[in-house]
């Protein structure tokens, strides 16, 4: 009985929180491993939330230093930072917070180290919605997204628990439970649309129509000039090596790179696919 009452209180608090959220657009916190993934996988949805009045913050975990063509790692990191900010602006994001981990070197970085930095920002911004890379996505070859997603998923959980990061209490960073969680990934996993199971506690597939913000997504993707040039040149190198051609890339210049980025975004379609865990995710079916 006592358990049941306590549970009702907790569920009530969550629902109150939901009602509160209905009144003011929630803060949105996007955790991103790299510059391009959040734009390509979730950019339209993020722009939609920003248009609806949500303040959006992006935490970019790595510095993207490896993905360029003919630039040093240092130069790449510098450009990527500015370009990520430009991309985020195009989506209506208020601020990009770089954590500065070296790209493609997360495997040997402390998992809890990343998690604890994310906990800090979750408690600071108190988001109503979080976007995290889906660590359960299969066949995404950029494992930074896996490591970031795993740390972010744990940060989402631990930020709500008072016994994590005790020093935070002294600077008035209280525990924070984010009511809505979107797991994002580009559509590389052939089984991404399958429900995980019928169980209530498993995040389920959710599609968001982004036709209204597609232009912003294209503008954001186009701002990522360094990674776009890298993609275009690598693609052309591969085609050249195998005696093939793509007429769009006969000459690689700013306009063909931009065009390829636009084709890329359009090719992803006007729907973004997530795994979604909302408020009801936390309330077992029998109590609803």
């Amino acid at each position, binding site marked *: 009985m006592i358990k049941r009452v306590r549970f009702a209180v907790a569920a009530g608090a969550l629902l109150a929180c939901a009602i509160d959220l209905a009144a003011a657009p929630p803060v949105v916190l996007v955790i991103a491993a790299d510059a391009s993934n959040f734009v*390509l996988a979730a950019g339209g949805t993020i722009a939609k939330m920003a248009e609806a009045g949500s303040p959006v913050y992006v935490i970019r975990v790595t510095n993207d*230093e*490896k*993905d*360029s*063509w*003919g*630039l*040093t*790692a240092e130069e*790449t990191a510098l450009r990527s930072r500015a370009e990520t900010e430009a991309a985020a602006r195009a989506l209506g994001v208020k601020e990009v917070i770089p954590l500065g981990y070296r790209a*493609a*070197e997360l*495997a*040997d970085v402390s998992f809890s180290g990343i998690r604890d930095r994310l906990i800090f920002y979750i408690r600071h911004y108190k988001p109503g919605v979080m976007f995290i890379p889906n660590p359960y996505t*299969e*066949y*995404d*070859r*950029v*494992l930074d997204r896996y490591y970031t997603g795993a740390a972010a998923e744990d940060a989402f959980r631990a930020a709500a628990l008072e016994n994590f990061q005790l020093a935070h209490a002294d600077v008035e960073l209280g525990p924070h439970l984010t009511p809505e969680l979107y797991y994002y990934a*580009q*559509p*590389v996993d*052939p*089984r991404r649309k399958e429900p995980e199971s019928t169980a209530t506690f498993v995040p389920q597939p959710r599609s968001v129509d982004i036709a209204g913000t597609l232009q912003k997504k294209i503008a954001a993707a186009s701002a990522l000039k360094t990674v776009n040039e890298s*993609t275009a040149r*690598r*693609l052309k190198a*591969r*085609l050249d090596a*195998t*005696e*093939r*051609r*793509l*007429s*769009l890339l006969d000459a690689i210049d700013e306009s063909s790179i931009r065009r*390829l980025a636009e*084709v*890329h*975004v*359009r*090719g*992803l379609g006007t729907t973004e696919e997530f795994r979604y865990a909302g408020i009801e995710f936390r309330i077992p079916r029998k109590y609803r």
Partner: protein
Amino acid sequence: MRTAITYRAILFAWGVAAFGADTILLGKLPKGKVVMVMQPHHDDHTTDYGMGGLIARFVDEGYEAYYVRASNDEKDGSHGYARNDMINLRESEEATRILGMKKVISLNWRNDYMGPIPLDELRAQLILLIRKYRPDVILGHNPWEHYQKNPDHRNVARAMAEAWWMAGYENVHPEHMKLGLKPHQASYLYLKARLDWGLGHTPNLAIELNESQVRRKQQAYQTHRNVYANPASARAVKSALARENLTVPEFEGLDDQAAAVRMEEWHMDWISRVRGKEAGVKYAEDYYFVDEFDHLPGLKAYLKENVRPK
């Protein structure tokens, strides 16, 4: 009355019942010159869930093939760590030679202790080898496999999952360029995993094998005598059947060692037939195939439509 049964018939009947009859698309091999197999252990090139036949087919179609053994295999066998390492390496060299491979490159990480290793260091070694041998194709364990308990399989697969494409990036280990090596990216991946270990590995491609490729696969498998084809396994089967008054006519005149070899060969033949039946051919192996532009999901359809031969 003693009843004679065919061991193969039992295996085959079980296999058909266990794996159903869904058809998987048959694939051709991509054009290329070099294939590298990146695996933790001496024997991972040929198991019931893959590779030996595909490796033989790559060789038949003109590929040079290299085997990277990441661990030292000290735990496989009953001769003590150091001797196990040496025996397993020797058998691996012999077995991969049967498949037509050119070389075994042993990285000698400690067997079954690859969970907590610095993964970037292993990846750097794989990247160095990719830049040296310049493979078009890489074969390995599926890093997204579910229920993989062996840390060596999990981590070598993870290192490979990044090494195969990162080797093409100039800013990844630029020190390699001091040797005159150039960035090089492999273009295709064939991933394998046990098919009875959950949803983490659902093959999307079957590769047809011919008779000779299956024979080489059988031979490569039973060459690993330190871990397979143990006479005791034949003895155990014979005595279990004897209790039921059954015999295996194919074992007649064979000692336990020869019978054990025969059993391992049937095992490879059987699984190749099961996969073949699923694909509508006599023999096959199944893989999760990662194509050259799968990492660009928004561009795939566009490229398919617009890329032309020069």
